[in-house]
């Protein structure tokens, strides 16, 4: 009777719930991170192959729905547009800096960034757009909190967890992502945070500040690793916050986070 109970389905389920329930409750991430690090290091080359293969497959689908010549031109134009958006935001910021004689240390030229380029090997499997994983980690000098950009100056997110050969990037659409931002033209301050992996919100803007559709949002430079002037996106819609104490702006980012192949990690802000 006893052995029948212990070999029964209910007992097995109960045992698993008890053991793994305790694991979830205590969440010993320090214990599992070295295991993740080893597994990620072994699996990274295979994940990169799978990622590249699926990326090419997705592009094949696009190919049949558009004329290849126009598609290539379109991609080039999109890339150039991203670069110009970032450059434009930086130039506006530099113009303002020169006008009010701001301290040089608050302006960090992009060409002085120490960048580490990496390939994306996996994404958030829950379809939430919360994170991506790259094939470079602590062995390449990458540390937690370092900003991640594409196309020279578009902010994609920042480094969340670092392993020896891989790193996890917390995207701007992640609800745990919080970055200090400003409006490029008017220096209106706010907090840029992610919204359930789907969008970006410019929050905690004072009611007395003026913010309008089309305004460019850039990083303010406040915070340990985040340089000033990295382009985040354009204001799409302005509305009051849920508590009516502040204003909120929905931001439209030029980055298609699910389509990222390579990113650059800023290892050094370049002003030291």
């Amino acid at each position, binding site marked *: 009777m006893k052995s029948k109970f212990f070999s029964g*389905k209910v007992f*097995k*389920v109960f045992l*698993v*719930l008890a*053991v*793994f*329930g305790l*694991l*979830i409750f205590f*969440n*010993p*991430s320090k214990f*599992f991170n070295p*295991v*993740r690090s080893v*597994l*990620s290091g072994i*699996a990274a080359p*295979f*994940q*990169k192959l*799978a*990622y590249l*293969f*699926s*990326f090419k*497959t*997705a592009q094949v689908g696009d190919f049949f729905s558009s004329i290849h010549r126009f598609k290539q031109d379109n991609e080039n134009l999109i890339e150039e547009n991203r670069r110009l958006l970032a450059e434009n935001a930086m130039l506006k910021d530099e113009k303002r800096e020169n006008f009010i004689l701001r301290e040089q240390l608050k302006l960090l030229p992009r060409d002085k960034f120490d960048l580490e380029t990496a390939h994306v*090997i*996996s*994404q*958030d*499997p*829950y*379809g939430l*757009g919360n*994170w991506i*994983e790259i094939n470079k980690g602590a062995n390449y000098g990458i540390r937690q909190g370092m900003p991640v950009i594409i196309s020279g100056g578009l902010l994609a997110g920042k480094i969340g*967890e670092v392993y020896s050969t891989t790193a*996890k990037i917390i995207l701007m659409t992640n*609800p745990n992502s919080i970055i200090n931002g400003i409006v490029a033209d008017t220096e209106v301050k706010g907090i840029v945070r992610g919204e*359930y992996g789907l969008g970006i919100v410019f929050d905690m803007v004072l009611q007395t500040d003026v913010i309008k559709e089309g305004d460019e949002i850039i990083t303010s430079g406040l915070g340990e690793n985040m340089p000033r002037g990295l382009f985040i996106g354009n204001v799409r819609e302005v509305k009051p916050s849920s508590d009516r104490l502040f204003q909120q702006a929905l931001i439209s980012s030029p980055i*298609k*986070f*699910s*389509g990222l192949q390579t990113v650059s990690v800023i290892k050094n802000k370049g002003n030291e």
Partner: protein
Amino acid sequence: MSKKIIGAMAILVSVFIQTSVLPVLFGGHQPPNFILMAVVVWTVVYGFSAAFPWIIFCGIVFDLFSHSIAGSNVVIFVLISYLISFLSGRLLIESKNWGSLVMAFFVLISTFFYRIMIILLQGRVQEIADSYAKFFQYSAKEAICNIVLFFLIFFAVNKINKYFYRSEKIIFN
């Protein structure tokens, strides 16, 4: 020993598909849940007891590669597997006419159950509270894709059993 290696490789490939293939192919939209459908198929084809250790291993590996809280997917997969095993013993799953509908029903409830459990374990309850319509919309889209994926995996597993192992359930027994 080779059966265990094949099983482990199948689980690793499933995890790679879920983390490095499907999110790219579905371009930011809700991808189907390949791992969950694999668990459901294993339970339907091999039974809860035979699939049990592999479901635990699958959950652990997926937790590690998906950067989830360790143990979260194990708990969810085991609960779903037990639920399906419990219901399949009581519903006409062998019936040609109703079997497919019953299995589609299993996929539906497992999809919704998985999404709710993951949201609860990740502390994202606000996501549902803010928009019930969006939650059901995304869940329904995922469920439809999962139903298609389920039958693909189901037929693939049955074909492997039939042609390569000559009706013996070698991989998990």
